[in-house]
């Protein structure tokens, strides 16, 4: 490859990635060379600025025709653009949270790492979203995973953090190995790692032995990927890691990382297995195996929602809730309807805001109370009604109550599941039944916030409020977190009432994701 070919590539397609990479590098160096006294939070603001810049550049790229560079290993299609927006927006919110994060044992020396590891993880996710090759996909996945492992274990002196990070690494590595093993078979059958070329090769597969091998590969890949999206059977890490990680990391894992997980699921599954013909009619393999995905989706929803019922730790509860949400999105993936991309995108968008907002409130409360037990939400309504009401909005949205973005998201998924022929009645029913189950624990938190009197420390504070003093809770609401809460609450309601804003954006800019496989 000489200089001309090098320059002939449209490098501008990679602008967002470059920005993130450069900012991450810059932050690393700044963190190393700035004096110790320098407040590392400023690095967070720089990182945030970088992410926003990248976001702007993605919007700038929206109008551009789909293209690929580096011999089709990096491609910018509608899918990539749409999901990069989600990733970047989520990360921006995570940064706002991270800047305010103030753990009990002190932020210590790893303040700077906090920020640039988020960025590298984000970079991995972005690469995944626009990779056209198994290798880049894998590298992106691992960049994300390894950064997440470190992030999860960053509070080195905290036993819970250590423990959860350890579990995360082990589970993650096992699933990576399984995933790779599946990938290696697919590679073996096609002899290429390029997704598009693979699809081409696979469309002519007819040897039953190969089909058998592909089926095996399908299961391995799917099981491996289910780890990333925290779906059954690889969901067990989620509760521990969510509980043990610093709250911004939890938010990151639950929102950005999950989005990335679905990105890779869609990329791999749709690129590879939708191309394999099975049976006499050449029915695509992915459709033939729909039932299995559906089974996992159902199991995920049931496990997530049912186990969440008995959680007392708020972060564990949200871990299970996030497992459940992964299940809902898997329903959309299972159905494979015309609105699949739309519904997954919209659901992830809604989840981005509602999840992130909820985590912002959780961070505020847990930081103040020093405990993650649900009972510390008691009496929140007395102490700070606004916080309680915004949290209620997020919870309602998570529960899928109309008027919130979560409802529209569920509606969309539902529509997809029932639209196809034959319709997925069972899956839709499980989804809705588990949604009702989820009411119980979401409303359980609300019960705490609204019905129960505040306990201990909080009560003293509430009393102070009554006497007209400024309570500690309201003395200084951190800027970043407040911003996150406001943005998320506004967006949750906005997309709940005017979802057409998002739909129009999708429909007018991404052309039904028709260029996904072109």
């Amino acid at each position, binding site marked *: *490859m*000489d*200089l001309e*070919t*090098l320059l002939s590539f449209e490098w501008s397609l990679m602008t967002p990635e470059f920005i993130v990479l450069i900012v991450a*590098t810059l932050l*690393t*160096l700044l963190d*190393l*060379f700035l004096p110790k006294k320098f407040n590392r939070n400023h690095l967070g603001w720089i990182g945030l600025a970088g992410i926003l810049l990248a976001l702007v550049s993605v919007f700038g790229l929206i109008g551009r025709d789909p293209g690929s560079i580096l011999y089709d290993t990096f491609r910018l299609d509608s899918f990539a653009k749409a999901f990069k927006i989600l990733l970047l927006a989520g990360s921006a919110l995570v940064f706002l949270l991270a800047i305010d994060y103030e753990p009990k044992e002190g932020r210590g*020396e790893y303040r700077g790492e906090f920020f640039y590891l988020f960025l590298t993880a984000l970079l991995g996710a972005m690469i995944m979203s626009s990779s056209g090759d198994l290798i880049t996909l894998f590298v992106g996945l691992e960049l994300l995973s390894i950064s997440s492992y470190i992030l999860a274990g960053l509070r080195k002196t905290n036993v819970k953090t250590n423990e959860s990070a350890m579990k995360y690494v082990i589970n993650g590595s096992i699933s990576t190995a399984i995933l790779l093993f599946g990938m290696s078979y697919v590679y073996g059958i096609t002899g290429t790692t390029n997704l598009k070329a693979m699809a081409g090769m696979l469309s002519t597969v007819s040897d039953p032995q190969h089909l058998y091998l592909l089926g095996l590969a399908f299961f391995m890949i799917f099981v491996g990927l289910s780890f990333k999206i925290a779906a059954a059977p690889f969901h067990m890490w989620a509760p521990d890691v969510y509980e043990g990680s610093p709250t911004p990391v939890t938010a990151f894992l639950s929102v950005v990382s999950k989005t990335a997980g679905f990105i890779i699921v869609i990329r791999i599954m749709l690129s590879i297995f939708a191309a394999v013909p099975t049976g006499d009619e050449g029915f695509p393999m992915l459709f033939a195996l729909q039932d299995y995905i559906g089974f996992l989706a159902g199991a995920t929803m049931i496990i997530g929602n049912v186990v969440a019922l008995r959680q007392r730790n708020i972060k564990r509860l949200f871990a299970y809730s996030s497992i459940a949400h992964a299940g809902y999105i898997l329903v959309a993936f299972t159905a494979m309807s015309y609105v699949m991309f739309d519904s997954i995108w919209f659901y992830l968008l809604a989840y981005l805001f509602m999840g992130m907002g909820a985590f912002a409130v959780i961070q505020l409360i847990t930081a103040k109370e020093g405990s993650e037990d649900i009972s510390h939400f008691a009496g929140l309504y007395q102490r700070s009604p606004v916080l309680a009401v915004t949290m209620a909005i997020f919870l309602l949205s998570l529960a899928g109550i109309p008027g919130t973005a979560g409802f529209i998201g569920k509606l969309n998924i539902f529509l997809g599941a029932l639209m196809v022929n034959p319709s997925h009645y069972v899956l839709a029913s499980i989804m809705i039944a588990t949604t009702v189950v989820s009411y119980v624990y979401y409303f359980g938190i609300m019960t705490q916030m609204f019905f129960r009197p505040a306990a201990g420390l909080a009560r003293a504070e509430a009393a102070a409020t009554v006497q007209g003093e400024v309570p500690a809770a309201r003395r200084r609401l951190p800027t970043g977190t407040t911003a996150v809460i406001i943005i998320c609450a506004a967006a949750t309601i906005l997309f709940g009432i005017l979802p057409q804003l998002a739909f129009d954006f999708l429909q007018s800019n991404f052309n039904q994701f028709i260029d996904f496989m072109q």
Partner: protein
Amino acid sequence: MELLNVYQNNYLIVFVFLCLGILLPVVALFAAKLLRPPYKAIESKYTTYESGMEPFHDARVQFNVRYYVFALMFVIFDVETVFLYPWAVAYEKLGIFALIEMLIFVVMLLIGLIYAWKKKVLKWI
């Protein structure tokens, strides 16, 4: 076929060397066993040597973490050479693009090194 034979023979040689490398100590130790006069060492010869003092504690105590950190550093950097070697071999054919790519790669590596440096990982206690 010829080429394959050469290839396989080469590795056969490697295997021969491996065998010899293992055989020599075995044979030598066996020879020593045969040659040396029979003896019965006194009990104290079997104690652990601690400069003449009575041994205390088990020796397998916890190490300074530095040792492990170096192991980690080694793993990382050694694996990076996995990328550098093919690159160097194929450099002629790859041209300037590979150079730039590798430059970025090595700069990242260097940042890693600087990171370790600044975090005082490279300092020996």
